[in-house]
Structures are given as structure tokens and as C-alpha cells.
């Protein structure tokens, strides 16, 4: 890999004061950005510059900065989590960009994810879907059974684990032309549907989670497959098909 160098970039960033204000794209110039820095470090550098200029820094979501918490988002140059594949925005590096580039940075766009401030959106719609059925009920009154006491076929355990890799970042919704949350809900339904522990509440789970998803105002899936490509965790479309099967089974019960 070539040694790090410094580049000068132009930024176009969505600025919005609060959930009620209108917001607009604003232009910024940022010089001397190291290609070894991460995308979020570049935004930190921009914010330092803005603070020095006594301007309001850009608000953006971030937490672990190692691609596991699901907190960072950002629609960068027309793609969720930016131009690289299989990563979250915090794992995106400035070496993906060239000197003189103009970089568009926008928040996730979805009716169900209202913009709170600048690039920060409210993703509690996902929490409400999860609360509607994304759990297994376990008796914890002192006679809890060890989870490993129930045998799980290796194949199912692997599929379930793959589905459980979803970090709930919302890139699927952001990238879907319909603003559909089906990859997220499909992963959450699949994670439990594949395990014996999840079978007990399978019927209510899928019905309740899909109902909540529809109530939140997400769009309908048209199988473009964009979510699967942009998902930082590589969640497969198979999970949406599994949710469709589970829902059909549950509706006929």
C-alpha cells in the first residue's frame, strides 16, 4: 500500500437545525486530510475547523468506531456507508478518495427515520420493531435451563448466526429505493425462526414485527437487492424470503 499523503477535499453536507427545520446542503472546504485517517476522523477534523471558526459543528452518529455497534450511518456520495463494501462508515478510510474530490454527505432518508439534527436520524423505529417480537421469552425464576442443553443443527446455527450479525444500522432502509426495512426485519425474524428456542413464539413474532414495520411507515420490498449489496454485515436476501415464508405460515394459522 502506498504511503499516506494529505489531500484537499470539498464537502457538501446536509445541515438541519432540528427535526422541525427545513435543512439544506452546505459546502465546506477541508485541506490537509490524511489518507490514513478514517472518514469519521475527517469529520472530526472538519468540526475542529468549524469550532475554530466559531461555527456550529456537524452532528453525526458514532460510537464504537470499529464497525460493530451499528451507530454510525451517513449516505456518502450516493451510497450507504460510502463507496467501500462490507463496512460501516467508521471503517471507511480517506484513501478511498482523491485530492480535489467533492464528497456528498447526507443522512439516511426515510419517513420512519426523521432527521433530528444534521446527519443524525432517529432510528427508534427499529427498536419498536424489535420490541414487537424480536426476543424469546425465558423463565428466569431460578430454574433457567442452559441454552446449550437444547441441540441445534450446525447448519441452522450458522444461518441464525449470520442473521444475528445485523447491527441494525439502517443502511438497508437508506439504500432501498422504497425505504423498506425488510432486510432488517427479515434478519431479526430469521435469527429466532431458525432456532428451537425461537419456534415457540414464531407465529406472533413475525405477525407483530411485520405489523410494527408497516405502522412505522417503511416502504414495501420490491426485491431490487440493493440492501443486500450495501449491508455492512452482508445479510442475505434469503432472510427476507424466510420472513415471507414465516409470515405466510403464521397468517394461515
Amino acid at each position, binding site marked *: 500500500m502506498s504511503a499516506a499523503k494529505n489531500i484537499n477535499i470539498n464537502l457538501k453536507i446536509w445541515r438541519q437545525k432540528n427535526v422541525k427545520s427545513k435543512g439544506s446542503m452546505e459546502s465546506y472546504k477541508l485541506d490537509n486530510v490524511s489518507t490514513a485517517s478514517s472518514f469519521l476522523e475527517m469529520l472530526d477534523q472538519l468540526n475542529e475547523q468549524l469550532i475554530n471558526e466559531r461555527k456550529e459543528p456537524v452532528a453525526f452518529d458514532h460510537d464504537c468506531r470499529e464497525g460493530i455497534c451499528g451507530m454510525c450511518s451517513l449516505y456518502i456520495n450516493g451510497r450507504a456507508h460510502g463507496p467501500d463494501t462490507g463496512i460501516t462508515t467508521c471503517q471507511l478510510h480517506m484513501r478511498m478518495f482523491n485530492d480535489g474530490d467533492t464528497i456528498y454527505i447526507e443522512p439516511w432518508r426515510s419517513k420512519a427515520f426523521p432527521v433530528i439534527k444534521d446527519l443524525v436520524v432517529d432510528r427508534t423505529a427499529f427498536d419498536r420493531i424489535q420490541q414487537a417480537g424480536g426476543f424469546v421469552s425465558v423463565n428466569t425464576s431460578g430454574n433457567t435451563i442452559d441454552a446449550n442443553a437444547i441441540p441445534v443443527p450446525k447448519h441452522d446455527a450458522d444461518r441464525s448466526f449470520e442473521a444475528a450479525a445485523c447491527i441494525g444500522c439502517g443502511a438497508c432502509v437508506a439504500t432501498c429505493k422504497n425505504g423498506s426495512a425488510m432486510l432488517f426485519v427479515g434478519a431479526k425474524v430469521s435469527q429466532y425462526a431458525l432456532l428451537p428456542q425461537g419456534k415457540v413464539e414464531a407465529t406472533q413474532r413475525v405477525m407483530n414485527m*411485520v405489523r410494527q414495520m408497516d405502522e412505522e411507515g417503511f416502504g414495501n420490498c420490491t426485491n431490487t437487492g440493493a440492501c443486500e449489496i450495501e449491508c455492512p454485515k452482508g445479510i442475505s436476501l434469503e432472510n427476507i424470503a424466510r420472513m415471507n415464508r414465516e409470515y405466510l405460515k403464521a397468517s394461515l394459522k
Partner: protein
Amino acid sequence: MAKSALLKSSIAKKYWMALTGLFLCLFLAGHLAGNLQLIFGDALQFNQYALFMTSNPAVKLLSYVTYFSILFHAIDGIMLTIQNKKARPVAYAMNNPSNNSTLASRNMAVLGTLILVFIVTHMVNFWAVMHFDKNMPLMKQTVEAQGMKQEVYLGREVGQFYPADQIQLATEPANPMMPKPMVIKNGTDIYNAQANVKIGELFKDLHKITFAFFQNPKTGLLATILYVLAMGVLAFHLLHGFQSAFQSLGVNNKFTPAIKTFGKLFAIIVPLLFAIIPVYIHFVK
């Protein structure tokens, strides 16, 4: 809850989209087989087929399912598109969807609308003429008997024909001085004029209508070009729609690669064969 869930929820809409879409794929295959007789069959065979398709009760039932499927697929599609537009009230300033999805998959509503326009025009041009046009031509042939060429109308029973000059068509002005012995009633029934007794039935000449439509010196070329374009639109719609229907119905397993390949072949071959027919009629025949 289960009942409304199978009609209203986002996933139920997918099921209905998929089921009606797959049924319409079956319809396309059947319709294509019928149309290919315009190339590989003669006029009589095609008109017999047209008669069968408009009179057989089982076909009639299937045709109602087809009308229903087209309407439901279109209405459901429009409702889904409206909902999906609402799900993203603010558009991205910069979007690069070609990185993650095909053009056809992102434009199913536009392609579908164009196909609906085509279906309506197509039905006005052929289906409505066949069903409702009182001036629909009846199937005629020129036969040679005793060295004389004679125009005859073909009866539905094999070998049955009626000399054209002895039949009073509903569209012709009657000559009260020389009444003709036979008269056409109800479009295709042939009656003995004096006794008012039905003596046979004739064929509607859909074959002639079709050839005249695409061979029309003024509009035939345009009609052929538009038909071919419409089949191109259909191909793109099917390219995404066929395999998408299986995903919607929850089929995503070891058969999926085969379904995708078959879907692509179906999406290319079926519209291509449809498109060849008017081209053949306009340019070859």
C-alpha cells in the same frame, strides 16, 4: 387478524403481486403458442383457434382470471408505488443506485404502466373487434369448381361452404328486387332467408384483421415498431419480475440459481417470439 394480514400487510401485497404476476407469465406462454399459428398455421387453423378461445367455457373462466390478474397486478402495483414514494419524502441530493441494483428492478412501475397502456391498445385493436365489432369480416375463401373461380364463406363443419353471392350480409344494402337466399344473423349465424331457419355457422376472420392491421400501408409499419418496443418493455419487466416473484413467495434456496436462469431465458425468449410475429407479417408475408 390473519385475514386482514393476508390482504393489507406489506408482505401480503408481495404475495399477490407474485401470484398474479406468475399467472400472467403462464398466460403469456399460452398466448404466444396461439399467436405463433399466425406464422406456422394457415388462416383456417388460426380462426378455429380464435373461435375456441372465445367460446370454450374453460377458456372463458381462465380469461376472467387473466383480466382479474391484470387489474389486480396493476392496482396493487400502483398502491405499492404510492406507499413506497411516501416512505422517502426527502430525496437524496446524490444517489448512485446503479451500484447495487439493476435498472429494470428500479423501474418496475414505469415498465408496468407502459405494458398496461400496451394491453389496453392491444385489446382495442383485436380483442374488442373480435368480441363487439358488428362489421367483423367472416372467413372467405376462393375455390375453383368446374373451372370457375368462386368466392365462398367457410362453414364451421368440415367441407361446409356457402357461395358468397348468395348471402346477404348485415353490412350490405339489401336489393329488394333480387333477395338473396341466405342471410347472416348474430354476426356468424347463417340463415335460410325465406324459412328463417339456421343452416350453419361461419368463422370470424381474426386472421385477416391481424394481417390487415400490420400490413396497413399507412399505419402498419408504426404498429409493428410500437409492438416490438412494447415487447422490449415486457422483456425488462420480466427480467426482474420472474425471479422476484419466487423471492416474494419465500422461495430462496438451492433452486434459486436455476429459477434465475430460467427467468432470464423466459424474459428474453417469450417477448422475442411475440415480436417476431408482426415483423414477419409486415415484412415477409
